[in-house]
């Protein structure tokens, strides 16, 4: 059983690393979800497998029992991972709506140099108004946009 799970961990890890090397943010995130599950399996495996034994036993039955701690750890990790992943997926969707791309090579607005277009409080002006020149790599700037109406508008209206 350990060997089967060990091989499974290896295969899943390889698959998730391959996905995380992708230039596409969505594919990267799926890799991240997968690698989170690999981590859970590693905890489960490293904690020691017990087949067919209950984690909780009565006082009389002192026979075989499974270690409950790895299960508790995995459960905690699953809950935390669920929260983080759902937030990140929503963020990725918003980023796609606002930037018009999920290609990480094109997601360079934050790291680009140049005038910062800082106008009011801590918020920045919409990109198109303040950036003159620079590279035009973002799809949003070149006008091709999957959600021109709602996504961009709702993000920029607030800034």
């Amino acid at each position, binding site marked *: 059983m350990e060997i089967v799970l060990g091989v499974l961990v290896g295969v899943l890890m390889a698959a998730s690393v391959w996905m*995380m090397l992708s230039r596409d*943010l969505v594919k*990267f*995130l799926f890799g*991240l979800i997968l*690698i*989170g599950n*690999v*981590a*859970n399996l*590693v*905890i*489960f*495996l*490293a*904690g*020691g497998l017990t087949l067919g034994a209950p984690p909780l036993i009565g006082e009389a039955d002192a026979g075989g029992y499974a*270690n409950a*701690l*790895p299960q508790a*750890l995995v459960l*905690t*990790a699953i809950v*935390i991972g669920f*929260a*983080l992943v759902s*937030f*990140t997926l929503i*963020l*990725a969707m*918003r*980023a796609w709506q*606002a*930037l018009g791309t999920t290609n990480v090579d094109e*997601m*360079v*607005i*934050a*790291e680009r*140099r140049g*005038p*910062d277009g*800082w*106008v*009011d*409080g*801590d*918020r*920045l002006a*919409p*990109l198109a108004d303040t950036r003159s020149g620079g590279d035009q790599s973002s799809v*949003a700037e070149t006008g091709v946009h999957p959600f021109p109406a709602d996504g961009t508008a709702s*993000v*920029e209206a*607030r*800034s």
Partner: protein
Amino acid sequence: MSALLVLCVLIPIVTAALAFLWPGTRPVSARISVAGMLALLAAALLLLREVMANGVLVAHMGGWDAPMGITLVADPLGALLVVVAAVVGLAVSIHAIDDIPDDVAANGFDSFLHLLIAGVVGAFLTGDIFNLYVWFEVMLISSFALMVPGGDRVRLDGAVKYIVLNLVSTVVLLTSIGLLYGLTGTLNMADLAGKLPLVANQGLVTVVSVLFLVAFGIKAAVFPLYFWLPASYHTLPISVSALFAALMTKVGVYAALRTFTLLFTGDEELIRNVVLAAALATMIVGVLGAMTHTDMRRILAYHVISSIGFMLLGLGLGSALAMSASIFYMVHGILVKALLFMLIGLVASAGGSFELGRLGGLYRTRPGFSMLFLLAALALVGIPPLSGFWAKLALVEAGIDSGAGWVLAILLLTSLLTFVPMIRIWSEAFWKDAPVEPGQEDIARPPTRGPERDSRLIPVIGLSLLLLAIGLQPGPLLALADSAAAGLLDPSRYIDGVLGAAGDQPVTGQP
């Protein structure tokens, strides 16, 4: 007295709930937030006094004794950092009143600020390695909630990088904790310290320790794992930038200090050399990055990276002198980074931009405020008699003591180079005449808010006075840093405090 430990974690969580649930939004929640931070600071100061008087303070949660249950531990280092975190939290909670617009704050800014502080404090106080992971996640998810709301496209772009790379570090941390548990069958750090040397396969222990180093290295923004930091910190609101720059990376440094002095002491030479090389590279790369930028927020973001190197130097050199110097530097670095970010927020508010090219003439219009900035900048650089001077003097002493000439050379070179970007901000934003951009004479500058009734000035003045006080009277803090370093290098008191008399029981077998 162990109730103090619980209070330090509980106060921010309760405050967060109160600030979120109390009817009415901004003025009320901001007041709750400031009051909660004051209560936390009081509890933290009491905790520090208690720890300095009576040694390591331990609380076993739920009545389960040490190796079984979850333990909260305050040793001098943990207690000192909790106090510093409370000071920064208080400063940020006051700063945010006028910095974060009310509609953005309505998304729960005050609550998440306190949850983040709860995560930071919990990480400083926990005695359980899995619990450390949980506090890291509390901190991380609150930081997401602080950085994204009210953001524009630039901030969304920065947030994606910050979040994605921090999630990678989370997975690495979780995996290494799982492997550590598989090797030893325990998660209690004091218990682990006794059981790790008994593991038959010491090679595997080294592998796991390097995994931990990578995970904490990403959290702490150590070269070459720092790329998420300059991609995101300059896109945040200034209050959040100040909070993150002051505290987030330092929790990673603390975790590295704790685990590599308490747990992974077997293969010390290897880890020490790796950490030393990474620390020196972080220092120099950070400061070089700062020199290439003209946006004040980006300059400071790179200074954050550079200062992480100084803080890891103690772990790299390994002597008591170096460790104490690094801890002193950590306290100074946390305070001065928060102060500098708040100051550039005020500069941008007065001058209309974070770009140095668009600023100017502030010394003429705001002489008093300019002096505050100069004070903070010189404190960062380390001009006597400000706090940075004592921190760097102690580090140089440790460098001489270690006998490694090139460590000393890089240390001094980095200090010198730190001066360049800071003095450039000073000469560009304060000394040169305000620029008029050709063809843009009529460009709308933001209305200059009068600084007289601005909540942002209170923490700026408070932190400046604190740094000045540390600079003029470094004795108490040096003594605290010394005892914190002694506690790290000789963990027996920590271990005995947690495990009590059961400290020297033999290993009872694998899970």
